[in-house]
């Protein structure tokens, strides 16, 4: 499938998949598996004769995707209970947001989801713009969308590399795919360096628009890089999708119940791989997404392999969207407010809370901002809450682990794609 025109779309006429409707949403019947395991089960109730072992996959571990501590109770190699512990990367971002002004917050929030930083910036600046009721010019919306889609490709590439690491180890086959995807990602980071001057943590979105404009020749260079990436995606699919060991490790592993996922607040590729056709870019368009057609890939098996397929399809789709948008970036200003340089430049008008959400590579990333109406505090938020999708995805772990092998838990955790910076903030 070397076709960049469209990603596979789930049309509903799948071979042999039975659908039902839960809450108006169409989900595959096979994936709904109540009753869900009880995350607060008392271990003594499990089996008095079993020889249970408590294994602590501590904050330092080659495969917990950052500092996550998971306490597993194992019966042999099967997990009985799983208790995740968070907070090892808690940096007090929300408290900092109560001290810094709207202009100064963007570089702080950059570091939440450190794999696709522009998503954080976009989410928070959209919330700020909703708070002060600012308009964003059309050119800026195009730049934001293009950057968001390229970030999505970069994030999924990184996910693919670390997923290979989980399965093959740094010394071994996983290392090979890791090296390849990071090499591709370097091309994208070079693009961003041309645009903003930084490879990570750009501080390029601001309230009312963008700080950096597209330099001359960037559109052509980006189109070329994206076309090359599209072909490399095809190579990855060949290398990984038909690899028998990859299939053996991921097919049927870590099946996620879509009803449970919705209740937990999980969206993004995890929910889409379980058959639920939701995407904030299409359903609640923001930035320039209302000017372009989005094909949302879904799968119906809900296992790690399905999540892999969805993410690779999303990569292709993002490449297509970005390429198409690059062809027609409108002229105009890139910021609606005067160049926002001084901390006191942006002031909130009311003390109510607004929420705005975007579709990050992990799901619904949103920000709830409450304006400050105290004396001389109007340029600083009153409360800023960042709704991170990875935290909701991690909540799935106590429901996913019981009954699974240790190896399967690692693979399932990898396929959930948690970014601890976002979880802990």
């Amino acid at each position, binding site marked *: 499938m070397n076709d960049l025109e469209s990603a596979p779309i789930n049309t509903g006429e799948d071979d042999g998949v039975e659908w039902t409707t839960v809450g108006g949403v169409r989900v595959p019947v096979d994936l709904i598996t109540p009753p869900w395991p009880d995350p607060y089960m008392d271990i003594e109730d499990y089996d008095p004769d079993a020889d249970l072992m408590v*294994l602590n996959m501590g904050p330092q571990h080659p495969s917990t995707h950052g500092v996550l501590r998971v306490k597993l109770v194992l019966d042999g190699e099967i997990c009985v209970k799983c208790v995740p512990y968070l907070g090892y990367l808690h940096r007090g971002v929300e408290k900092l947001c109560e001290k810094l002004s709207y202009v100064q917050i963007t570089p702080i929030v950059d570091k939440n989801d450190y794999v696709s930083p522009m998503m954080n910036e976009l989410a928070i600046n959209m919330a700020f713009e909703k708070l002060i009721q600012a308009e964003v010019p059309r050119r800026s919306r195009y730049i934001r969308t293009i950057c968001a889609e390229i970030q999505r490709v970069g994030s999924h590439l990184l996910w693919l590399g670390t997923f290979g690491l989980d399965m*093959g180890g740094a010394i*071994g086959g996983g290392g090979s795919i890791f090296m*390849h995807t990071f090499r591709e990602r370097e091309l994208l980071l070079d693009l961003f360096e041309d645009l903003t001057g930084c490879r990570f943590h750009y501080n390029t979105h601001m309230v009312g628009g963008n700080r950096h404009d597209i330099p001359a020749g960037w559109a052509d260079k980006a189109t070329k890089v994206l076309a090359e990436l599209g072909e490399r995606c095809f190579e990855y699919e060949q290398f990984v999708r038909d690899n028998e060991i*990859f299939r053996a490790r991921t097919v049927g592993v870590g099946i996620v119940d879509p009803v449970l996922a919705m209740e937990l607040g999980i969206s993004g590729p995890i929910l889409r791989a379980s058959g639920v056709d939701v995407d904030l870019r299409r359903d609640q368009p923001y930035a320039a997404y209302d000017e372009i057609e989005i094909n949302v890939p879904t799968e119906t098996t809900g296992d790690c392999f399905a999540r892999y397929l969805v993410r690779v399809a999303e990569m292709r789709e993002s490449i297509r969207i970005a390429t198409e948008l690059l062809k027609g970036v409108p002229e105009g200003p890139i910021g609606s407010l005067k160049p926002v340089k001084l901390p006191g430049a942006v002031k909130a008008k009311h003390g109510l809370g607004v929420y705005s959400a975007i579709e990050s590579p992990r799901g619904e990333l949103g920000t709830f901002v409450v304006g400050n109406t105290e004396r001389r505090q109007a340029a600083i938020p009153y409360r800023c809450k960042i709704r991170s999708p990875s935290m909701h995805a991690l909540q799935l772990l106590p429901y996913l682990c019981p009954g699974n092998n240790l190896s*399967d838990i*690692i693979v399932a955790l990898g396929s959930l794609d948690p970014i601890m910076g976002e979880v802990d903030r």
Partner: protein
Amino acid sequence: MTFENPWIHGLVMGLIIGNVSLAITGYSIWFERKFAGRMQNRPGPTVVGPWGLLQPVADVLKLMQKEDITPRSADKALFNLAPPLTVFVALSTLAVVPVAPGWIIADLHIGILFALALGSLMVFPVWMAGWASNNKYALLGGMRSAAQSISYEIPLLLSATVPIILADSFRITDIVEAQLGGNWFAFWPPGPGFAAFGLFFLCSLAESNRIPFDIPEAESELVAGVSTEYTGMKFGLFYLAEYLHTFIISMVAAALFLGGWDGPGDHDGFIWMALKTLTLFVFIFWIRWSYMRYRSDQLMAMCWKFFLPLGLALVMFSALWVHAS
């Protein structure tokens, strides 16, 4: 080169073959890293010495000067015994492998049985390390390794039985001499011979815990598996033992199935043995850097449901073939 006195013969040959093997194993680390680097579109070690050739030396010096930490609650005797025992068992398998006509440390009548038996002994040091470390990751690694090694010995023995039947001797020298002249057991009879070779190759990969069977030392799950608590030169010994075991099974596979020192025409000699061994060795690296690992229950299923019946079928087929001809 044969000496009259078996003790002197063993000593001299042992020194020569053992040291050469250890040297090649040491430099295989350099080669693997270069090879892996090129597979991943990067150069590999280049800093230490020209083309990074002094990298193994640097690694060994680094490991030697590291602090030797023994956990307080570890079983000290077993903990300290396990790494040298691993190397010892791996090296002792070298005793019956012929590297050239006449160059063999101990030409036992039961050569191949001796080699396989010592390979089975490899379970013990690994298990000891897993238990004595008093660490749950090491314990899990040790248990997985024990289960895997014990299971994969059976198809290994069965596939090694095929050249035994075809050559009608347990002595490895006899097996090699039966293949001289180009009728290597890997290609004769066509089909089952190659299947036996493939089976032997894969089962020895499983025995030495190489990818795709390296679940006992799965880095992403069990930090370093059995060798989690080992530091410094003890870790170095485990590392060395793994490479040594891999090298030796390449030699054994080359001797059993690829004709050993058989060359084209009449030009037999050590160089062909070396070439075949190194080809297999490189092939093992290639597999390692391309594939991910299987899950432990999938490994067991593969062994008992696929490899074992295949091994049995191969043995019966070769027995019938020899009986018929």
